[in-house]
């Protein structure tokens, strides 16, 4: 403990030293190659190009995708590579900047002449990369963009699907879950971060204005509070006071990052905890740090490494999850669990490999056609089928998870749950 503490304190002291030495880090280029080498693979490596947000606003999650991608490529090469050749991944830092994403993908395709591409992280960046991929007719599996109506390029393949209408899927699934409780919630508060994806789930977009708000009303539930807040909100006390006064049975927070932590904390200061609370896309680690205050919190997931789930998937999944934890710990990530983001990353790589195998060559149109005709085999989402009429969004495998005794546990639907959904907390 003391040794560990000293080591960490040493790192802290290094901050001052680093002041003069890290400017260049913001624009770094990172290359990853399976160090296990191509056991059975030989010949020129197949180069996969992509960007990730390794610095800037999306860097926290970008780091997860980098670790997952490196682990995948290493594993792939140990298992014989792709088409008998080793795979090399060239990943560049887009600095969380959409404009840089376009430029870098253009360079990867036209100057570096990469053989394949895979998407970057975060919806705005994925949209930028998709435009370049479409222009060059490259097939692009992508990790996390779920707003299906925006992803119209027929050769983009989503690795995380909330179906063709996430704005209806998410609230409907949540209401089905809480509707199964002995006393389902009737009074609902909806708090929406005005970020694109979260606002979309509350209010829809374009011609489809369905969302959490309209679905709540259609189901005959009482909408006791509706608040929209800016993404940069820092003062949570006014929202907490309004929730406390409205006394909802269920708070739906279509929020991001640490929004639910800030809300729960501000409500706790008012000596109030809602009977049930759901948060759409929270950072998974911080709510666990709140202890009992966050117990019972609901959210969505495409994968949680609960024992029951891993037992179903088999030894390979357990190995991947364990290896990721080791790598994430070494990279000093604060939350080292292989869950939704890492699973989406792994799915994207599985889709890429499935496409190339289906095509039997590195021809972009053949890969795209192969995925449309044969689908993809994935470790964490099973067999996927892509329908261009649905912008390739496959039937969602997204589940509801809940914090139970300090850990995230999948609870709905029952056939894919690792635990029982728990009702209102005291």
């Amino acid at each position, binding site marked *: 403990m003391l040794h560990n503490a000293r080591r960490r304190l040493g790192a802290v002291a*290094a901050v001052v030293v680093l002041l003069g030495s890290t400017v260049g880090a913001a624009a770094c280029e990172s290359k990853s190659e399976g160090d296990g080498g191509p056991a059975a693979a030989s010949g020129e490596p197949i180069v996969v190009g992509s960007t990730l947000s390794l610095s800037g606003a999306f860097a926290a999650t970008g*780091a997860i995708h980098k670790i997952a991608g490196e682990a995948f490529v290493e594993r792939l090469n140990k298992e014989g590579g792709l088409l008998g050749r080793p795979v090399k991944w060239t990943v560049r830092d887009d600095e969380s900047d959409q404009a840089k994403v376009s430029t870098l993908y253009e360079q990867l395709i036209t100057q570096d002449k990469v053989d394949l591409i895979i998407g970057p992280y975060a919806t705005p960046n994925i949209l930028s990369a998709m435009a370049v991929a479409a222009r060059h007719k490259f097939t692009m599996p992508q990790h996390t963009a779920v707003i299906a109506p925006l992803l119209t390029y027929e050769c983009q393949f989503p690795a995380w699907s909330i179906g063709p209408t996430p704005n209806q899927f998410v609230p409907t699934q949540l209401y089905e879950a809480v509707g199964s409780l002995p006393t389902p919630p009737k009074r609902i508060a909806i708090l929406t971060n005005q970020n694109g994806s979260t606002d979309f789930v509350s209010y829809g977009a374009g011609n489809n204005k369905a969302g959490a708000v309209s679905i709540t009303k259609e189901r005959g539930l009482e909408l006791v509070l509706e608040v929209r807040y800016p993404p940069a*909100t820092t003062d949570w006390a006014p929202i907490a006071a309004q929730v406390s006064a409205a006394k909802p049975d269920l708070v739906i927070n279509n929020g991001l990052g640490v929004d639910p932590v800030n809300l729960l904390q501000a409500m706790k200061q008012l000596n109030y905890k809602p009977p049930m609370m759901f948060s759409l896309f929270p950072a998974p680690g911080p709510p666990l740090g*709140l202890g009992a205050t966050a117990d019972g919190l609901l959210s969505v997931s495409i994968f949680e490494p609960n024992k029951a789930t891993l037992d179903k998937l088999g030894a390979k999944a357990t190995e991947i999850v364990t290896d990721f934890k080791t790598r994430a710990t070494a990279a000093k990530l604060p939350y080292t669990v292989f869950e939704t983001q890492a699973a989406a990353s792994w799915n994207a790589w599985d889709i890429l490999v499935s496409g190339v195998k289906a095509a039997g060559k590195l021809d972009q149109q053949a890969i795209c056609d192969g995925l449309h005709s044969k689908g993809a085999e994935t470790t964490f989402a099973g067999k996927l089928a892509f329908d261009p009429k649905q912008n390739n969004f496959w039937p969602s495998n997204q589940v509801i998870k809940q914090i139970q005794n300090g850990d995230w546990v999948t609870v709905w639907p029952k056939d894919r749950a690792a635990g029982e959904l728990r009702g209102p907390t005291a």
Partner: protein
Amino acid sequence: MTVVQAALSGVLLGGLYALMAAGVSVTWGVLRIINLAHFGMILLGSYLTFELASTWEVNPLVTLAVTVPALFVLGGAAQWAFDYLRISELNSLLLTFGLLIIVVQSVSNVWSADFQRMTAAVNPYATEAVRIGRLAFPVPTLLAFAVALVVIVGAHVVLRRTFLGRALRAYAEDRPIAAAFGIDHRRIGVLLGAASGATAAIAGTLFSLGNALTPATAFEWFGTVFAVVILGGIGHLVGTLAAGVLVGLLSSVVSVVLSPATAPFVLFSAIVLALLLRPQGLFARPSR
């Protein structure tokens, strides 16, 4: 009752804004340095508190014993460098923005860009509140307000009643004349920079009590803190406290009465209007 509670929370949060703004205001007003690196020092203060409290399991408030001296030295060193390099007011904006980027990237390298937050086990203050009747005074912002009151009023007294304070004010008014009277501007500048660093440490520690940290947080403080500095009157410490309270109060009340989405629009519209009427800031006398 909801509006009253929100107003109270806003006033207390205003104390934290004022504490963050005090160092920026005084170095800008007296030393003519627009110190954006001050936001980096607040960030460092908050991460140091996080690290010390999480690693050694000490009370986060006790970490002030480390963060205040550390950033006192850093603030003084930075001011010495600005003075040595003869940085002008405009250039200071560019230079200190560069320093801020370096600090933010360094923090990312050491602590990662992911959210960091002290657990409930080491930080009992995050969810605590003092209750008087039906009103709750959240402990993190209550502490921030109390400390801001002590620090800012204390600094105001020093500026008004001591030789050092008079020297600083003379230096701010007219540098050549102050120098002619034997005022060592380098020494008092370094002292003021160091004191500013110390306030950044306090603000950082108090911020970390109630908030999750990411390196990018530093950029989120810009708008509100500069609004407080300018509304309060540049270099006017008591005005900074009053402006902090006003900004916090207005933002919270608008959030409840209208909506949180409207608050920034109303707040910054009010600031523009206020500055049109009183360009020197709401709480500073016009210069003669």
